[in-house]
């Protein structure tokens, strides 16, 4: 019995004790984690610097809120308006764009609103509202949710009614819900490509310049958040923006498809987003 207790104590200590070397907390959007990007690139950073990275995969709104309480060392998010507020409120400094891809409107293959194959996201949303085709909204203040709300504003529509379903969940939950309900939803391309339950869903609308999805890394202002590990966090931000980090982002492929474009590989001047499998 005593031996069992000792063994247990050692096991518990091993689990609780911090491993050697510094570890920083990166509050990130779910898309870069769920798509497998961070699991691909962060080990390269850790190998190069000895700094371990603990990833909190949250929606952009929650990630910024976590960081604003001083509970993260660095944020990686994708909602330009919320990021600007975060910086204006004095929490963040040194915003850098490190990757981009695009959003797509995902919908049932049966396409009840007849929007498939289009390239105008706003026109498609109008059609969905007119036909009252089911639409799943994240409703979680994430970057994707923020863009969806902006698109509805551009369309001049305040979505409401039984067809508009706010699920208050992450991207994967929204895709699972859309699949189950035969509904449309807005998804970032990375999560969509990595998603394992596509079943009756397909990409309906893509290639609209308004669907550009940029990922920014923001450091926390050490004057506002003195407990933050500014040094190692800054090294991760620098590495993500460095040629080495940018190459790692561009190298990540899932089933032969590139999911994220490094910032250096900027979208063409007319902002026409490349679409289809090559993205």
């Amino acid at each position, binding site marked *: 019995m005593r031996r069992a207790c000792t063994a*247990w104590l050692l096991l*518990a200590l091993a*689990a*609780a004790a911090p491993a050697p070397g510094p570890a920083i*907390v990166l509050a990130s959007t779910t898309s870069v984690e769920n798509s497998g990007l961070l699991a691909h690139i962060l080990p390269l950073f850790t190998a190069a610097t000895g700094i371990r990275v603990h990833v909190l995969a949250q929606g952009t709104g929650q990630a910024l809120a976590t960081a604003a309480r*001083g509970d993260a060392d660095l944020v990686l998010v994708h909602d330009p308006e919320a990021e600007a507020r975060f910086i204006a409120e004095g929490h963040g400094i040194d915003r850098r764009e490190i990757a981009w891809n695009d959003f797509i409107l995902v919908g049932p293959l049966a396409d009840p609103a007849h929007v498939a194959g289009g390239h105008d996201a706003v026109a498609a949303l109008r059609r969905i509202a007119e036909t009252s085709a089911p639409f799943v909204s994240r409703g979680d203040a994430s970057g994707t949710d923020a863009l969806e709300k902006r698109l509805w504003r551009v369309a001049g529509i305040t979505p409401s009614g039984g067809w508009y379903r706010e699920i208050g969940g992450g991207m994967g939950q929204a895709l699972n819900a859309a699949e189950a309900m035969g509904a449309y939803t807005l998804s970032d391309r990375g999560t969509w490509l*990595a998603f*394992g339950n596509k079943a009756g869903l397909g990409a309906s609308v893509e290639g609209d310049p308004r669907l550009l999805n940029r990922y920014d890394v923001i450091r926390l202002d050490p004057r506002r958040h003195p407990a933050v590990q500014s040094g190692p966090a800054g090294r991760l931000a620098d590495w993500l923006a460095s040629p080495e980090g940018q190459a790692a982002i561009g190298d990540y492929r899932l089933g032969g498809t590139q999911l994220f474009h490094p910032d250096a590989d900027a979208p063409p001047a007319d902002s026409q987003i490349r679409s289809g499998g090559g993205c």
Partner: protein
Amino acid sequence: MAGFLPIVGLSLVVSLSATAIASLLGFALASVLALGRFRGRAALIVLVNALLGLPPVAVGLLLYLILSHAGPLGGLGLLFTPGAMILAQTVLAVPIIAALGHRALAEPWLRYGRALRSCGVGRMRSLPALFAMSRVALLTAVLAGFGRTISEVGAILVVGGNIAGYTRTMTTAIALETSKGNLGLALSLGGVLIGISVAVSTAALALTVPPGGLGRENQAG
């Protein structure tokens, strides 16, 4: 899915540690509730039973606000660590073990308390005898507490953060794989979790109840 065994290991370390701590606290509280004589005892019993329905997400959020850098205990650096997860699950398990433990101790105390006292055995000295009489029911209380901790996801997701290789457990991994649309993998993880739960219960019963003793409590009593 990489690192499967560490996930199972962390689930067990966190939940068994929380259950152990909660058992100490819960049994102490149960003894006070069953044998104590003080004002407000009835109210405390009602409160402990009411806390059986403690929502894990709310417990997680409350602890998050306390352990956050902007909160009163932020300096401990516990947030997003296994330690915070053990703390959260302990809070969830204490009312269960205390309420069921109270039930288990109150009944033999009603029946034998007077006899014990007439033999000159004090309340404190009666406890070992009561624990021995009620050990199967007390074990059920511990297993109910363990069931709560190993299966909950709401609290540890908030205070642990589901960090890969550090605070990811079976339940948070199931939630994650579901959100990635890997429903088959999520379901098989759920199967493994049930298997582990069965194994722990079986081991606990085997250690506590003599062979052939299970299911014969009525005749034995």
